[in-house]
């Protein structure tokens, strides 16, 4: 129970019609993950700064009391914790126990602190939501399941993504968010730099 005069901004910015909003957002997130490099729109949530609308919508859709969320760097604010607690009930955990982690690429380093799953349960791995300054369908070339010919994304660190793919079937999955836009990079996607592709 909170005091009467407490700031209540964190109570806002959730789904207005949770079943419908969550189903639509889930469809977009699934499409993004199924077609690496394809940029989808996710703007239902209005989370507190510095979380982007796309990352906020993802968390409202995917996080629940059974999924630990790790807030990295500047994303670990009191407002963020309160917002996440009210709207999802997800516990805030350390990187090693996280099902989801959110932050900028630099704040999420090193990637080795996150769980990549085990041979018996490769699904027990973390999904990273990387907040980007910019998200464009150009730069590093992508190949693999879900990509008919070739796709491209301006990845923050192609080498780290290549190393992640090399661990398949273990590894991390990434959502890349920028404002209201989101793209995904599952562990199955092969990453090649422009020079190689040419």
């Amino acid at each position, binding site marked *: *129970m909170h*005091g*009467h005069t407490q700031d*209540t901004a964190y*109570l*806002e910015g*959730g789904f*207005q*019609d949770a079943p419908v909003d969550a189903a639509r957002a889930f469809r977009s997130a699934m499409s993004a993950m199924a077609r690496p490099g394809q940029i989808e729109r996710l703007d239902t949530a209005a989370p507190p700064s510095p979380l982007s609308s796309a990352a906020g919508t993802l968390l409202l859709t995917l996080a629940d009391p059974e999924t630990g969320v790790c807030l990295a760097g500047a994303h670990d604010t009191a407002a963020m914790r309160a917002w996440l607690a*009210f709207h999802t009930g997800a516990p805030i955990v350390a990187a090693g126990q996280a099902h989801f982690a959110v932050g900028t690429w630099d704040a999420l380093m090193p990637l080795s602190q996150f769980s990549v799953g085990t041979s018996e349960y490769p699904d027990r791995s973390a999904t990273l939501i990387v907040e980007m300054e910019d998200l464009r369908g150009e730069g590093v070339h992508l190949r693999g399941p879900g990509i008919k010919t070739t796709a491209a994304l301006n990845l923050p660190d192609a080498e780290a993504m290549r190393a992640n793919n090399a661990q398949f079937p273990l590894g991390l999955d990434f959502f890349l968010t920028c404002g209201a836009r989101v793209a995904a990079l599952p562990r199955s996607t092969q990453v090649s730099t422009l020079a190689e592709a040419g």
Partner: protein
Amino acid sequence: MTAQNDRKVWMSLLAKSPVTDLKRLWEGFEGAQPGAQSHVWLRAPEIGGVMVRGRTGATGAPFNLGEMTVTRCSLKLPGGEVGHGYVQGRDKDHATRAALVDAHMQTAQSEAIRRDVLDPLEETMRETTETRARKAAATKVDFFTLVRGED
């Protein structure tokens, strides 16, 4: 801390209140205060289950008594006051009324709400409890005929 304890008392009262009584009292209040109904949703009414836990005495270990259905919602009045409603059962309108009462208890209308809704509600619920206790007491058997072994 007394403000928080006060709120605990009325939240508890609203959570256990019968649907029909709260509906009647709220509609009476709303009739006198048009516009009291207006709000925006922070969390639209949703139905879920909660585990009720119990403990025997003050020393027993906690145990799970069983699950019950609860409806909850959170809303904000035009003035910015936030109300939460947690009630028994599956009635979304009931949860909305409970949240509205909670929110209005934080406004200048708290006295009116207390007089028109909370106090009568408490009275009605106490009567119900007392009636039930009286009926139960009437069935009590005194074993005064038992031989006590004095002779």
